[in-house]
């Protein structure tokens, strides 16, 4: 899932013209932007496995801080607050839309994730094993 995220960006922009298009472009990919930064810093882990899924060679085996329900919730709230601080004129409703764009993009990722992908399982010990949401791989 990559460019499909940008469709909702355009739709959000159409519905709420005051939100800059580049902001929703970043919002729908914020979780992946943070993921890339965390991978570069060695905080989250990925390995290249050719043929891992039909469309993606990335085995995303450890990414608890970005691609998890609680992680995505935290980033979505943070994004909404940051947006509000910089564009108070748009109000909280616009900030909520930006936050929702961040959070809902996680759901879109689930739609084409590997069946091994589990959102909550990836939390550090203590959270793991209580809830699992296996993804449905569209391309499988």
């Amino acid at each position, binding site marked *: *899932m990559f*460019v499909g995220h*940008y469709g909702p960006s355009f739709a959000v922009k159409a519905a709420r013209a005051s939100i800059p*298009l580049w902001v929703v472009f970043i919002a729908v990919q914020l979780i992946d932007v943070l993921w890339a930064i965390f991978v570069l810093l060695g905080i989250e882990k990925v390995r290249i496995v050719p043929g891992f899924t039909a469309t993606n060679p990335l085995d995303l085996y450890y990414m608890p801080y970005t691609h998890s329900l609680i992680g995505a919730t935290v980033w979505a709230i943070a994004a909404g607050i940051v947006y509000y601080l910089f564009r108070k004129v748009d109000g909280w409703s616009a900030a909520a839309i930006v936050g929702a764009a961040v959070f809902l993009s996680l759901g879109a990722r689930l739609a084409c994730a590997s069946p091994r992908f589990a959102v909550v399982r990836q939390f550090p010990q203590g959270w793991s094993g209580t809830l699992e949401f296996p993804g449905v791989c569209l391309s499988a």
Partner: protein
Amino acid sequence: VFAFLLEVAILFGGMYLYLKTTQSISRTGRFGIVIFGFVMLMVQSTVFFHPPPSSDKAAAITALVFYFVFAGVACWLEKQLIARSRASSTT
């Protein structure tokens, strides 16, 4: 292939909604958005059908570059369009 077609439908569906609510103020406005859509699809095709990245770091850097380049292009293209409601109120 199904996943790819679904992404195409979502991308251009959203783009259609956006273009319906805007009016181009320059030649690059309307066509620029559509061309941008096809460029993004070409990038997506590369991800789908080309050899995998050489390392995890390479994958992360490639993703970061594209995210920010796409956001920058979107920022520029947005300036070529104006909301129809604003356009009609100024005429």
